[in-house]
C-alpha cells in the first residue's frame, strides 16, 4: 500500500509538471500574445505597458516566468490578467456550481448506463435490446452543444417546463434541482450511450465464459449469476472510464454544458479565460484537472481490488 501511494504520488507530480509546462508553453509560442497589454488596457501608453511588463515579470526569460507563476499558484496568490481577481478564490467560489452539475449527472449517467446496458445484454437480440442500442448510438452521435440547444428550445422556450438558464444556490434545494435538470440530462446522455454500449458488449463476452456456465451448473439462478459473476466482472471497463470522465468533468471539462446553460462554474471561467488568452486560470484549471485524474485513477484502482480480489495494487 505504501509503495502504491508513493508511486502514484510520483506519477502525479510528473503529470502535474508536464501539464503546467504544456499549458504555459502553448501560449508562449503565440507571437501576438502580450499579457502586459491586456492588463494595462487597450488605451495604455507604451510606457505603462512596459511598467506593467516589469511589475509582473513578463520581461524575464520564460523559465523564470514559469517558476514565478507556479510559485504564485501554489501560494494561492495568483491573479488573472483580465479582472485582477484572485484565481484560487474564483475556483473556490465556482467549484460548488461545477460539483452541483457533475456529481448528480455522473450518478445519473453511471446508473442509467448500468441499467440500460444490463437490460440490453439480458435481452440480447430482442426488441428491448434493439431499442436501447438504437437509442445509445443516437446518443453518442449527438454533440453536447446541440443536445443542450434542443433541450433549451423544447423544454425551456416552447413548453416552458423548465427555466432557461442560470444557477440557484443549494440553499433552496428545489430551485437548485429545477434549474439543473436540463444541464444534467445534457451532460449525461452522451456518456449513457458510451457506457451502456461498452457494458453490453462486456456482458455478452462474459456470457460464454466457463465460470458463468459453472455458476449456472452449481444451481445459481440466472439473476444471481448475472449479479454476482457477470455484472461484477463487466463493470471494470466502465468504472475506469467513469474515473477519468468524472475527474476531467469536475476539473472543468463540462465547460460546454456550463457555457450553454450559463452556469457560473469553473468550466465557464476556463472557457472565458481561454478566449481572452488569460493564462493563470487556464493553468490552475489544467493542474486541478490533472490532480483529479490522478486522484480518481488511484481510487478506481483501490475499487478494483475490492471488486476483484485477484488484483493487487502495484502502482
Amino acid at each position, binding site marked *: 500500500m505504501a509503495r502504491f501511494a508513493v508511486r502514484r504520488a510520483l506519477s502525479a507530480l510528473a503529470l502535474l509538471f508536464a501539464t503546467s509546462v504544456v499549458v504555459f508553453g502553448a501560449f508562449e509560442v503565440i507571437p501576438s500574445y502580450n499579457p502586459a497589454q491586456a492588463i494595462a488596457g487597450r488605451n495604455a501608453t507604451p510606457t505603462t505597458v512596459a511598467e506593467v511588463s516589469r511589475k509582473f515579470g513578463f520581461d524575464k526569460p520564460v523559465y523564470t516566468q514559469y517558476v514565478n507563476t507556479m510559485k504564485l499558484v501554489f501560494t494561492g496568490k495568483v491573479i488573472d490578467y483580465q479582472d485582477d481577481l484572485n484565481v484560487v478564490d474564483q475556483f473556490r467560489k465556482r467549484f460548488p456550481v461545477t460539483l452541483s452539475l457533475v456529481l448528480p449527472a455522473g450518478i445519473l449517467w453511471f446508473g442509467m448506463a448500468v441499467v440500460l446496458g444490463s437490460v440490453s445484454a439480458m435481452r440480447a437480440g430482442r426488441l428491448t435490446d434493439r431499442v436501447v442500442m438504437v437509442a445509445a448510438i443516437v446518443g453518442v452521435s449527438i454533440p453536447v*452543444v446541440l443536445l443542450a440547444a434542443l433541450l433549451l428550445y423544447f423544454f425551456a422556450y416552447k413548453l416552458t417546463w423548465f427555466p432557461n438558464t442560470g444557477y440557484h444556490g443549494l440553499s433552496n434545494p428545489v430551485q437548485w434541482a429545477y434549474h439543473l435538470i436540463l444541464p444534467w440530462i445534457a451532460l449525461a446522455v452522451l456518456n449513457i450511450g458510451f457506457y451502456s454500449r461498452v457494458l453490453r458488449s462486456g456482458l455478452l463476452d462474459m456470457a460464454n465464459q466457463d465460470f458463468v456456465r459453472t455458476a449456472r451448473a452449481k444451481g445459481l439462478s440466472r439473476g444471481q449469476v448475472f449479479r454476482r459473476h457477470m455484472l461484477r466482472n463487466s463493470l471494470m471497463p466502465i468504472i475506469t472510464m467513469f474515473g477519468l470522465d468524472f475527474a476531467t468533468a469536475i476539473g472543468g471539462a463540462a465547460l460546454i454544458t456550463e457555457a450553454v446553460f450559463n452556469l457560473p462554474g469553473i468550466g465557464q471561467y476556463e472557457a472565458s479565460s481561454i478566449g481572452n488568452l488569460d493564462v493563470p486560470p487556464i493553468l490552475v484549471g489544467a493542474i486541478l484537472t490533472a490532480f483529479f485524474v490522478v486522484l480518481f485513477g488511484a481510487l478506481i484502482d483501490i475499487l478494483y481490488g475490492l471488486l476483484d480480489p485477484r488484483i493487487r495494487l502495484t502502482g
Partner: protein
Amino acid sequence: MALDPAIGPDAGSGVVIGSDQGSGGAWEGGRHAPAVGPWRLAMRRMRRNRVALAFLGLFILIVVVCVLAPVYSHDIAQIGPNQNNITGQVKVGGQEKDVVAVDGTPIGPTFTSHYFLGADTNGRDLAVRLLYGGRTSLLIGGVATVIIIVLGTLFGLLSGYLRGVADGILRPLMELIWSFPPVILGVVVGTALALGGLGPIKGNSVFIPAFIIGVIYSPYLGKPIRGEILRLREQDFVDAARAQGMGPMRIMFTEVLPNAASTIIVFIPLMLAQALLLEAYLSFLGAGVQAPNASWGTLIADGLNYIETTPTFCLIPGIMLVLTVLSVNVFGDGLRDALDPRAQVRIKT
C-alpha cells in the same frame, strides 16, 4: 464434400486460412477449392448488414452534396458563402422582401433557389453556408482521421515492436495526451495556434483544427495498436521473418503491420465520428474554424444566439452533423462486427 465457403476462421484472428484444406475433399478433381480469405469473409458479412450499408450510403450522399457546394452556390443560389447582403431584396411568391428587415431580423426559409433556408443577420445565404460548412467539417474530420491513423499506427508500431527506448519515450507521451480532456487540450492549443499560425500554415486555416484533433486523438488509436503489436511480435511468423534475415523496419511494415490492419480499419469510422464532434466543440468555443469560414460547429454556435426566435439556425446544421456522425457510427459498428466480432474498442470524447 466441398467446403462451405461461408464457414471459415474469423477475420482478424491471425489464423492462417486454409490450414485444413488438405483433409477435405476440396482437392478432388485436381482443382483448388475457391479459397476464401479473411477479407472476403469480412466483405460477405458486411454485405449482409443492410442497415450499415444504408447508413454508408447516407454518409456518401452527404459527402457528395457538400462537395458540390460550389455548384449550388454558383448556379442556384448565386451567392457566395461569405457574401453579405444586408440591404438586398429577394422575390418570394411574387413579392419583394428584404433579406434582412429594418429591425435586423433576417428572412426565414423561402424554399426557393435564393435563401432556401433563410439568411443570417449579415444577409448570408444559410443553405450555401450549410453546404460549405459541411465541406469544412468533413475536410477537417477527414484530414484529422488521416493524421490519427498515420500517427497512431506509427506510435503503436514503434513503441510496441521496438520497445526499449522508443517505448520509453512514446508511451509517456501518449499517456500525457490521453489523460488530458480532449476539449480543453484542443481549446488551449487551438486558441494559441489560431493566433500564431503553425509554421507556413496561417492561423485561420482549417488545417490547424484538423492537425490539433489529429494529434489529440492519436493515442486513442496508438494505445490499442501497441497492445496488438506486442501480441503479434511474439508470434512464430515474426521469428521466421527474423530467421530469414529481415531487418526490424521490414518486419514491422511488411509482416506485423498487415496483421494489425483489421484493427486499424475498425478505428477509421470511429475516429472520424469523434473528429467531427470535437471539431464542433472547438468551433463552438471559438478555438476551431475561424470567421468568416463556416463549419457545422460554427453554424450551431451562431444559431444558438437565436434559439428563442429562429431555432432552425441552430437545428439544421445540428441535424446535418448528427446525421453524418450517426451514419459514420452505424457503419463503423457494422465494420467492426464484420472484421472482428470480438473487438474491444474504447473511444471517448
